[in-house]
């Protein structure tokens, strides 16, 4: 290529290179900074509840438990088995409650409804409630993330 004006060209060339390598240095350093800013997400692997506190005698009875920083709901089904849900609406993260008389989960924020199996049936929720695995082991009720029961 023909250089028309060496003074300006040389300057542009240098500025380009300096800009590029400064960007490289910046990218190298900013990466850990960005990673630092996002807090480590710690969802519990499992939660162990004392069975004595969660007897749930009748069918359709329920009790809440802490699932990390979110509430969970442990519910006795009609056949006597236990089901656990993360009691957080899939719409905009509000906490939901179970209404035993209506056999529905209700989210008061935007009038979202789920049936007793956690399936979204009315209102804005896009997905069913998240289900957790429940394992009863003698005096303990172990609640695990879905599909991670060993």
């Amino acid at each position, binding site marked *: 290529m023909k250089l028309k004006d060496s003074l300006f060209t040389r300057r542009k060339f240098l500025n380009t290179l300096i800009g590029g390598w400064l960007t490289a240095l910046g990218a190298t*350093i900013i990466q*850990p*900074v960005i*990673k*630092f*800013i*996002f*807090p*480590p997400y*710690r969802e519990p692997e499992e939660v162990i509840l004392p069975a004595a506190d969660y007897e749930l005698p009748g069918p359709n009875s329920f009790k809440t438990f802490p699932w990390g920083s979110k509430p969970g709901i442990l519910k006795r089904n009609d056949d006597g088995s236990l089901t656990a849900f993360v009691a957080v609406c899939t719409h905009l993260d509000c906490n939901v409650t179970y209404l035993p008389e209506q056999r529905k989960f209700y989210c008061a924020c935007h009038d979202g409804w789920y049936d007793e199996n956690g399936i979204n049936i009315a209102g804005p929720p896009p997905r069913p409630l998240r289900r957790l695995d429940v394992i009863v082991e003698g005096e303990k009720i172990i609640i695990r993330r879905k599909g991670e029961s060993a």
Partner: protein
Amino acid sequence: MPKQSFREWLETRLGWGQIVNFLQKKEVPRHKHTLWYYTGSAILIFLVIQIITGFMLLLYYKPTLEKAYQSVTQIMTEVSYGWVIRSLHHWSATLMIAFVFIHLLSLWILKAYRPPRELTWMSGVILLFLTLAFGFTGYLLPWDELSLAATKVGTEIPSTIPLIGRWVTQLLRGGADVTGDTLTRFFGLHVSILPLSLILVLGFHLYLIQKHGMSVPLREEKQNRPLPSYPFWPNFILRESVFWLILLGSLITLSLFLPRGLGQPADLMAPAPVGVRPEWYFLFLFQTLKLFPATILGIPGDTIAILLVMVAVGLFFFLPLLDTDPAGRKGKVITWAAVAFIVYAVVMSLWSVL
């Protein structure tokens, strides 16, 4: 084409060309000691790094008796790169204080405080003490054994000042003893009161430097010939940026190879751990206080020591007013006092370590 016009669009609105224009006209004199001009901006670079890493640590740090140690542990073990960021904050503080000392001592020896730059020097001394206060308050925040013990000693020292001493200690501690209240107090100082004060004084300091230009050493000034110089922008800034890059690289290397640790959690009831020592920049003072006998002529040795330190600080602050004849004999004595101080500080620091 669009790039050019965007630049022009901004220029008509911001008028930054004037600043560039001003900086191009600002001349930096060139002489043997030009190198010392770089120390000021080195401090600024570390200050910027301190502010950034400080904000980042604030995202996770909890300034209470129960949570402080735990949250620092969390930063160091759970948060991605947490130990790196904390280590950077520590090393950047260390290097910043080191450069503050180098900056002040070099200006002392070069006598840059000569009229009309007396206030530049005095504001610089205030900045030194603000920086040391940052170091002292920040040292307590991780709330481990050593930081608690060092803070107990450090806040006890003012109590030996006659009349107001007890009162100063209580003010610093937020009570009679170092407790969780002290921690909260130091946190407030470290993240709010000190930064605001620092920015105010620093603004004043930089304004004065802009107003009076760079000081030229006496020897060069006496030769009565125009010194060669170059514009601040871009010639001097480009030279400085080479230095900044080296400093940045060294800081990151130090932080990764010598990461800052965390001791046992502080226990208010436990006996002081072995080897309590302040940070290196307080070592010479620490050793000086140790050397004083319990009583001199019936007066407690501590009181005499602290009064002597206060007199020294006063002399240091008013140095430009004392050095009325920089070129003469008195000026030479004052220059040698700087050298004597450096020797004294180094010897005392080494003594307390060995």
